[in-house]
């Protein structure tokens, strides 16, 4: 094929393709996913995929909360995730002891309570035996002041520490003590301690009902948190304190029970699904085409034997075998791709072979052979150009199957564990009974992504088929 001919047929193709609405839709969806995959490090944290299984990495986020935009649809405003910087800082030297005072102001205007309270702080401690002490108090809008916690920071090392204040026993005990002054004693005595939410007490009106989920009324207004950190060595340094109000909603897609940002997972998962889908489909189709053409070209006994082998491979059940291989070898992404293609080429082979047989009977192929053309020449020059259009459609139509297969294996907890995939997100969702607990934001997006990515290729493939198949009929 000359270059001009190629250009002409390409522009021909584009002309026809533009008229296939479904193909255009598929193209648009696909481009969206490609953009997500390529720009993943800019759209989401660059190290999110590598740290997907690193639990501490995600600890600053709220646990299992829906996306922030759900507030738009809800009459009950839920608190978003907020990281508060100190409104004022003060340092006082008292002999050997240094008192660092940080004041945080929190405007609480919501109808629901934050899920957690965390303090992030960098402490440079010289003597591990003398760790700094933290005292946290709050002044509520109603003027009451509550001592929330007094605890020791970690004593060794440099760098950021994270204190999950709302899970400290001390914190809960003090708030329950505060609430008892207002709650009906009968109610208070029958309550199960486990079920009392200290965060609710902290942000509720000080009156009867404060201890129960039903009775509590959010107290709106400005909360002033005062964190005093005492260090016992003048060389110790305390810096960058931040108070985290873990929201009831978070980000674009919410978080899972391990506090992971699902949006990051979704964005990074695009890479795996796209790569697995496309590379597997291209490989399978290529193997199938080469095998099918060779089988048709040689014909006779060779063909017979090759097709018997193909038939056996075709009837080997892929999923159970892959489960066993994956469980025992724990492959990373590239072996995953190769293993998946290993069992799926016979379909393409079958179609290509029958096309090859048709082509072989064509007079121009016979003529070429009569003129003494060699096998490779005939295959490359006469058979391949006719088969090529089919190849493109077949690659596109093959992708959804591999995306599904990879997702299925990931869902079973198999596959590459060194990076995040959509199937893994759903695996974790299943493991945490997300569906049973109505955590739709955890379940819907990854599955939808799988379906949409598959759909884009299915649309593209069927459009390609429509455009290219009339040309097949001219064979």
């Amino acid at each position, binding site marked *: 094929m000359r270059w001009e001919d190629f250009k002409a047929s390409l522009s021909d193709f584009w002309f026809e393709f533009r008229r296939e609405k*479904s193909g255009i839709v598929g193209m648009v969806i696909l481009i969206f996913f490609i953009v997500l995959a390529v720009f993943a490090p800019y759209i989401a944290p660059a190290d999110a995929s590598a740290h997907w299984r690193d639990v501490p990495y995600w600890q600053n986020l709220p646990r299992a909360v829906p996306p922030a935009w759900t507030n738009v649809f809800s009459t009950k405003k839920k608190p978003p995730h907020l990281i508060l910087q100190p409104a004022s800082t003060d340092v006082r030297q008292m002999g050997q002891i240094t008192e660092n005072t940080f004041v945080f102001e929190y405007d609480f205007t919501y109808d629901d309570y934050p899920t957690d309270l965390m303090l992030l702080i960098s402490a440079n401690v010289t003597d591990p035996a003398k760790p700094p002490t933290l005292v946290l108090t709050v002044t509520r809008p109603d003027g009451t002041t509550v001592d929330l916690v007094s605890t020791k920071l970690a004593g060794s090392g440099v760098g950021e520490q994270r204190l999950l204040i709302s899970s400290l026993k001390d914190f809960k005990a003090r708030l329950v003590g505060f609430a008892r002054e207002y709650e009906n004693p009968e109610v208070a005595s029958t309550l199960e301690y486990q079920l009392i939410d200290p965060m609710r007490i902290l942000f509720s009106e000080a009156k009867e009902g404060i201890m129960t989920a039903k009775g509590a009324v959010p107290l709106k207004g400005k909360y002033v948190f005062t964190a005093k950190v005492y260090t016992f060595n003048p060389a110790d340094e305390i810096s960058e304190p931040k108070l985290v109000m873990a929201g009831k909603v978070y980000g674009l897609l919410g978080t899972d029970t391990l506090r992971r940002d699902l949006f990051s997972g979704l964005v990074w998962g695009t890479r795996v699904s796209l790569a697995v889908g496309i590379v597997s489909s291209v490989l399978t189709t290529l193997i199938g085409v080469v095998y099918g053409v060779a089988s048709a070209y040689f014909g006779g006994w060779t063909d017979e034997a090759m097709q018997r082998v193909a*038939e*056996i491979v075709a*009837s*080997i*059940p*892929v*999923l*159970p*075998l892959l*489960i*066993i*291989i994956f*469980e*025992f*070898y724990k492959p990373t992404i590239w072996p995953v791709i190769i293993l998946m293609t290993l069992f799926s080429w016979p*379909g393409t082979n079958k179609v290509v072979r029958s096309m090859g047989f048709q082509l072989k009977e064509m007079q121009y192929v016979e003529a070429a052979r009569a003129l003494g053309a060699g096998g490779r020449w005939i295959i490359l020059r006469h058979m391949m150009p006719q088969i090529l259009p089919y190849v493109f459609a077949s690659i596109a139509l093959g992708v*959804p*199957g591999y*995306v*599904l297969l990879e*997702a*299925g294996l990931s*869902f*079973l*907890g*198999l596959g590459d564990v060194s990076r995040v995939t959509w199937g893994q997100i*759903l695996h974790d*969702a*299943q493991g945490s009974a*997300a*569906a*049973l*607990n*109505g955590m*739709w934001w955890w*379940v*819907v997006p*990854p*599955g939808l992504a*799988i*379906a*949409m*990515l*598959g*759909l884009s*290729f*299915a*649309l593209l493939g*069927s459009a390609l088929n429509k455009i290219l198949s009339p040309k097949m009929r001219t064979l």
Partner: protein
Amino acid sequence: MGYGRYIVVRVLNALLVLVIAVFLVSLIFSSVADRELRAQIEEQIAAQMKNPELLKIFSVNKTARDIWYQTQKEILYKRYGLDKPLLQRVMSRAIDQLKLDMGKSHTLRSATGSSDVSRIILEALPRTILLFTTATIIVTIIGLILGLKAAQRAGSMLDKSLSIFALITYSFPMWWVGMLAIIVFSYYLDLLPSGGMTSIPPPEGTLERVADIIYHMILPVSTAVLVSFGGWAYTARSVVLSQFQEDYVMAARAKGVPERKVLYKHVLRAAAPPIVTMMVFGLLGSLGGAMISEIVFNWPGMGRLYWIALQEHDVPVLLGNTTFSIILYLASLVIMDLIYGLLDPRVKVGAQVAV
């Protein structure tokens, strides 16, 4: 060739594939498992050597310790078959699997309390078949009816929406749709049970029990049907449509055969064998999806067994389940082949007799 010989060939073919697949599984397993087994044996011997009596002897006599270690190792290697060459072990493992002699589970028990792997799986197998067959039958009926209607009115709204629906569901993971169904119908609407095969405790009386199982099947079966029927209908439509373009349809119409008869007698009969062929792969593809869906619906079949075995790393169950899955898959394949043979006279009656 004749139908009898056709059946024999198909069954032999399936058996050959079974043997190859099980051999492959055994090979994969043995190459990894032997390493683990050796490590376990080392551990076991090390644990035994902590026996104070033995330690007393060993502290006096160092060579006795080595000899004891060697003999223990040999005994255990022999017991676990590690003294034989790899290929032989793979063979005997494959044969054991084919004889359904699959060893004992570490973690699971059957309803009767047996830890025998084949017992455990044989309990799960019928449940998978029940769910899968029910879904398949419903999908086939809906798919055929819709496919026919769409082919009759090619280009109509029905036809177009069916094509779009088929394209969309083509790439839906069945198990994910199951999770959505649970969120909608169990969590939000609270209409249907989210999982399991029976209520706990199961109701008294046979009829009540059957009704209870059907009640629990609604969600998983509907999910499978929803995801699959579009594709089936689309396949049926394409095959029927291509039959409509055949000359014999024109001939039948020219002969004055009523349109209904053209459709049901000529087109449908002729379309049946290619429909069966095209659906074999769809069906076997959805078997995998259906087994994964069992996990979502907590349906106590082979799919959920996979989930548990994978979580617990229960290797004998994993291997046995794989063998049974292969058998189930190939059995479905043979059944489809048999149906195909009945539908296509070229198989049923045999090839050309006279020219």
